[in-house]
């Protein structure tokens, strides 16, 4: 792993390295070189397997962070290539020419985050959200609960219970009666 990182360093500008485990490293690179880095890792370092592409919405920093996780079957090590792209113009180069399977991930990211991958096959077609007409649901500004309440006819009568309180009342009945007063404890035992 060390050698791979030194070789990477000699070729590309790596902004940041996070060594999570001895066999898992995350590197952060700039958007223009990202595809180059991934291609290099695939063709020269033996990272032949694309495990996943994921995205995180950092709304406070106004970026989407994409992670390309690659696996090396000889050494059994993983490298995550992280790229940050602008949230206002979410666009990234497609890697479907490297792995055909990437097309599926990119389609999903397009659907869930609205990130565009020009040239990727069928990227704008809906996968699970058929006929979705709102902002992409995995973006942070999308209020999932509000949307669900407005759309899906919620049934009355849901209530919440704090597991800590429930267990406290269950395990220490006398102490809690002293602490909260009998009336409240009885009410809580009924679950309201």
């Amino acid at each position, binding site marked *: 792993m060390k050698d791979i990182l030194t070789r990477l360093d000699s070729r590309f500008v790596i902004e940041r390295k996070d060594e999570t485990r001895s066999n898992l490293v995350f590197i952060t690179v700039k958007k223009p070189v990202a595809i180059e880095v991934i291609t290099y890792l695939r063709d020269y370092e033996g990272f032949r397997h694309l495990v996943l592409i994921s995205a995180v919405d950092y709304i406070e920093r106004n970026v989407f962070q994409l992670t390309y996780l690659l696996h090396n079957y000889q050494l059994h090590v993983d490298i995550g290539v992280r790229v940050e792209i602008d949230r206002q113009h979410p666009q990234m180069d497609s890697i479907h020419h490297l792995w055909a399977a990437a097309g599926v991930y990119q389609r999903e990211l397009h659907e869930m985050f609205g990130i565009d991958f020009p040239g990727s096959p069928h990227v704008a077609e809906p996968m*699970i*959200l*058929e*006929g979705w007409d709102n902002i992409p*649901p995995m973006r942070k500004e999308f209020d999932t609960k509000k949307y669900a309440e407005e759309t899906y*006819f*919620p049934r009355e009568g*849901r209530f919440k219970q704090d597991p800590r309180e429930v267990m406290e009342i269950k395990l220490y009945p006398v102490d809690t009666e002293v602490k909260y007063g009998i009336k409240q404890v009885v009410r809580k035992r009924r679950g309201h």
Partner: protein
Amino acid sequence: MKDDEKTIDEMLNPAGAENEFLTEEYYCQALPKSVQPVANKIVRKFYNWAQANSLWILAFGTGCGSIELPPLFTARYDISRFGLFPRPTPRQSGVFIISGYLSVKTLKRVIRSYEQMQNPKFVLALGSCTVNGGMYFDSYNTINRLDYYLPVDVYIAGCMPRPEALIAGFNKLKQLIKEGKAEGANKYAENFEWYKANQKKIIKNWDMPEYNW
């Protein structure tokens, strides 16, 4: 080869006739009608008894609950003891088990399958997801209450109910049928507009006929 370059969509709709499919020619436009039970009391009882003892289940699994169905059909719980039997297509079956949460995309397929089923048909809703959304109550893509979209005859609560609970649910369904109370299909036909309005509210790309059977 030129054919290989075509996508599946192009092969299915050669003349670029996407979405403008030939509704009138492929589908019957008639709407469902409610079927009144036989007037003669003895004959009606006999019909209900016969129906209750030959329930054929549609093999359609949604959500976590479909994993409860294989043990139900196999040696351990052996549901054929109760006169129940899984069938592969909607045309052959009379009971639809909605086994858990339904995403909007699945709901569309469920509605199509339900409408294709022959008439004495019953819906068994499994799990708390079908009752009030369960743990997916605040999801952007799963429905909360199944009874707004399909008429439910029996609910089986739990997350996930075990096969024993399912058997209990089937016994309840049989009891309802014998009493002549499992009138879900008629309810659907009578309140057809209401159901359709709810379905269309969430299925935004409605590209199928009103009632497809």
